[in-house]
């Protein structure tokens, strides 16, 4: 019989090496609570990351997982999930990992719709490499690589996700754990690919998008009666309420119930392929060879 776990049961053996006050502590706590409240056991979960400050998270949580390459959390996580789809797979990483070097994988993962969750800890800065502009850094933002101001527009992860066929698109803020836990639980429960852009402020290198900034500039979509089944409404909010407008939406932007990838390969994935017997039977071998005669 399995017991219901608490957040502390998901605490890893290694203490996080993040800077004191880093938003990633909040994300770790929220994720541990969400896993516990989703009724999951430690061995039923794999948390898979790329490279970056936030990608160290799998080392600090008591589940299975992988700590892979910069930008490659999603292909590793999708391979893992297809191999063992009874497990809950959660990809984690930063905005450089998810929206910069790994953005190609993200777009295709969203349209592919494998049943997993992707948490992007978005701090609009490259922290581990000590403070360069990131894909979500605001226009004009001064960083070590843009001392005269960032000349590029920031990427809008929410409208990109909506345009890429994502079946679940949400945004959380590490400084609002109550809302974040509910969003993470909904993402984990969602049958399909769930993207949760999560503001996770960098206290060391980003003096613009601080915790204070997000507390002052975010609002809860649910409180304003947003209909998460309405794609057009989601696009409207995603494109109108941005950094520039000073009014940033959090919550679930959009969710639909289209079949996840695993449901399109029902025969092959009737049981996890990692449990399948390996090899070809003698009878089947003859059939396979017959095609070449």
């Amino acid at each position: 019989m399995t017991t219901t776990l608490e957040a502390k049961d998901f605490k890893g053996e290694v203490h996080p090496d993040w800077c004191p006050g880093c938003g990633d502590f909040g994300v770790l706590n929220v994720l541990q609570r969400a896993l516990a409240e989703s009724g999951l056991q430690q061995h039923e979960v794999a948390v898979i990351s790329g490279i970056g400050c936030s990608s160290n998270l799998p080392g600090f949580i008591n589940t299975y997982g992988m700590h892979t390459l910069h930008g490659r959390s999603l292909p590793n996580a999708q391979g893992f999930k297809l191999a063992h789809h009874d497990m809950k797979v959660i990809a984690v990483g930063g905005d450089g990992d998810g929206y910069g070097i790994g953005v190609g994988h993200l777009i295709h993962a969203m349209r592919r719709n494998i049943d997993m969750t992707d948490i992007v800890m978005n701090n609009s800065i490259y922290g581990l490499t000590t403070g360069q502009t990131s894909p979500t850094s605001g226009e004009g933002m001064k960083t070590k690589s843009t001392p005269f101001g960032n000349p590029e527009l920031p990427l809008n992860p929410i409208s990109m996700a909506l345009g890429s066929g994502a079946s679940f698109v949400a945004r959380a803020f590490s400084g609002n754990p109550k809302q974040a836990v509910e969003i993470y639980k909904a993402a984990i429960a969602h049958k399909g690919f769930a993207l949760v852009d999560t503001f996770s402020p960098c206290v060391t290198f980003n003096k613009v998008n601080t915790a204070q900034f997000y507390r002052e500039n975010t609002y809860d979509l649910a409180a304003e009666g947003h209909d998460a089944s309405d794609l057009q409404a989601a696009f409207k909010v995603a494109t109108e309420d941005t950094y520039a407008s000073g009014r940033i939406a959090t919550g679930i932007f959009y969710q639909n119930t289209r079949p996840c990838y695993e449901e399109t390969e029902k025969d092959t994935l009737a049981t996890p392929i990692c449990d399948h017997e390996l090899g070809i039977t003698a009878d089947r071998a003859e059939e396979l060879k017959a095609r070449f005669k």
Partner: protein
Amino acid sequence: MSGKNVIVRIAGAAGDGIASTGEILGKTCSRMGLNVMAYNSFQSAIRGGHVWLQMAIGAEKQLCHGEEPEVVLLFNKTSPSVHVPDVKSGGIVFYNAATIKKEDIESIRDDVNFYGLDFKSMVDEAGLTGVSPIMINTMLSGAMVQALDLDTSIPLEFIKHKFQKKGDQVVDLNQAIFNLGADWTKNNVNEHVFQPKGDGKAKLFMTGNEAMGLGLAAGGLKLYSAYPMSPATGILHYLATIAQTDKIVIKQVEDELAAMNMVVGAGTAGVRAATATASGGYCLMVEAVGLASMLEVPAVCVVVSRGGPSTGVPTKQEQSDIDLCIAGNGDSPRFVVAPKDPEDAFYQAARALNMAEKYQIPVLILSDFFLSEHFETIDDLDFGKVEIERGKFSTEWEGEGRYKRYEYTEDGVSHRVRPGAKGAQYVPCSDEHNEFGHVMSDVEAGLPHAREERVKMHAKRMKKMETMVSNGDIEAPTLEGDENTETTFMTWGSSYSYAKEAINLLAEEGIKVNHLHFTDVYPMPKEATLAQLKKCKRIVSVENNMCNSLCREVLAQTAFEVTEHINRWDGEPFTGEYIVNEFKKIAAKKELAKV
């Protein structure tokens, strides 16, 4: 030479049906128990490029597609000037008289027999309706089958099978056109070429890519992710056809980065996973192959070599990627194996999956354009010989205390518990790590205990390179033929067959050469390899490249230097004759090695 044989060639524009004509002919021979080796020469164009296919057919195993064809089918007006000069004196050329003018082709040579088939007048005369000019390929197939005196009932059956979905009328029409070509040849062609007789035991007729895919399936492949790239795509195409029946997840993904990383993710979760790509695509996978080395995750990648650097020569032959397969950042354990022919590709693919799991490493199967795309007959593939060996692996964790994924062991291989097992949670980490998999490279980097851990963990991983050899799992090169010859040809991968053909041709002239062949190219068992090398008096390497990649690797791994080379890097595979000619050039500098 591979016994008495006949060489045939089929040439035309891409889209003329060269491949299907070749397939009908090849399968007809294969079913009759004849041996075939077919080489496709094609350009990277969907339509409009000039393509040809050459086939050696004989009662014995064919090692070479040959040089001078004796029976030739020419489809388009580019064909005569390209191919007629190659035809063996006294050979037979059938051509499409609707696209090739009699005066243009028959003036090229007077020692070759030309037969133009006038498709339109022949079908009109026979009263056939509903025909299309493209069906000339069926007519010319009939001519070829008849000229070789093959059993016409076999191609007629293929035609039936191919067109039966379109109804009896279409089947009847195509069979009638085939018979027109065959009957016309029977009545009008007087010259006889060598007509090989099969033993009646049907063989398998397949490409290296198909054999590789079949070998992966036999070896327990459960997930295959890939990004299309010639000449590796044939593996994806084959596996896609059996994905549902054999319950293999086949994913075409967004790029090669995704393909290899997906394999690593799936391998971590405990399935046998593989990908394949060509040389340039593999460049994008290098980082993820290192990841598999670091995480100690089984992963298999077929690297199909083509001319480089960069995009290079996409649909042509080259063997210049040994260095690429060994390369990556840092020292990283792996195994590189180069199958010599399609039959070998089947067994090596299954072996690669075993080696990957047994040693928890990436395994690279180094193929090449010729091996991957050419068809040949195989007597049989014995699935019974394929055993699944998973090494130190379990789906549950019942050990004492906290599970150490990277526990230090004498052989460098730690017990692998499949994720999902209760109580054994671990996180494989691309950073340097300790026995539990905890990161040692961030805040702890440089501290004395982290330095010690780095030394031990890196040594543990690299220990596997020694263990593979000491366990006897890595084969030394094979030395075939008389040990007392003056000269040895040294080859690897698909050059095996051509060198063997050359050795046979030289033997007919009384020149004895033996054959040292490498299948396992990294690591090499140093002592056993040196012992083989030292048995040879004068070694001449035969490689389909410019810069002698095997020789470089032999030098690096054994300190033995090979200084005489036969190379070819114009994009074509060797032929026996080519090697013989090159050998005579270099041999002329010294005394010919007559024993």
